[in-house]
């Protein structure tokens, strides 16, 4: 079965600082990969998805970017964090027609 690794579990960053969140996947190959963000008490919002190395689709224009340098590695980045970037970030892996598997997320607080 798939395992999704995300780190760090929690992160506190000042406004204007850069960000790099990493997600790695075990137990599958050539998965579709996804980044979601969840605000407190809300559902998940899809930010980016990738169907292969170097292929990134953005769902919501924003201060963030994503990259997929390897088949099972997905990175979420920002050059300058905003207060509105606070939230719970989740990485997911899946294939078409199959349920997605989620990591345990990174809780990001911007001060």
């Amino acid at each position, binding site marked *: 079965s798939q395992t999704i690794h995300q780190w760090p579990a929690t992160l506190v960053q000042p406004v204007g600082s850069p960000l790099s969140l990493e997600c790695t996947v075990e137990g599958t190959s050539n998965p579709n990969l996804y980044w979601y963000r969840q605000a407190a008490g809300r559902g998940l919002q*899809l930010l980016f*998805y990738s169907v292969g190395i170097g292929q990134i689709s953005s*769902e919501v224009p924003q201060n963030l970017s994503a990259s997929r340098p390897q088949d099972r590695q997905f990175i979420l980045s920002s050059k300058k964090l905003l207060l509105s970037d606070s939230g719970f970030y*989740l990485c*997911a892996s899946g294939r*078409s*027609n199959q349920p997605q*598997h*989620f990591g*345990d997320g990174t809780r990001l607080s911007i001060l």
Partner: protein
Amino acid sequence: LAKTTQPISMDSYEGQEVNITCSHNNIATNDYITWYQQFPSQGPRFIIQGYKTKVTNEVASLFIPADRKSSTLSLPRVSLSDTAVYYCLVISSGGYNKLIFGAGTRLAVHP
């Protein structure tokens, strides 16, 4: 992508059966119905998926009427550990499996 509507919250007691209904009036022929469970500070976890009639696994049952415009997640004999947010999603069988999460149903199980 079909929009889903489900109750914001529900309360139950240990040992009772809980039924959470989701409406998806605009479901397409190729769409599947999928339910996820999410505990605080964790990623969503896949519970069950179905296309029509009834699906049962070790965790839950999913009932889907013939018109497929709604579905009901049934949790038998809930325990305190079933307190969580439950999300109903409609997923296309083709494409990139982009999940659209609503606010979900917050289930509270009481002693």
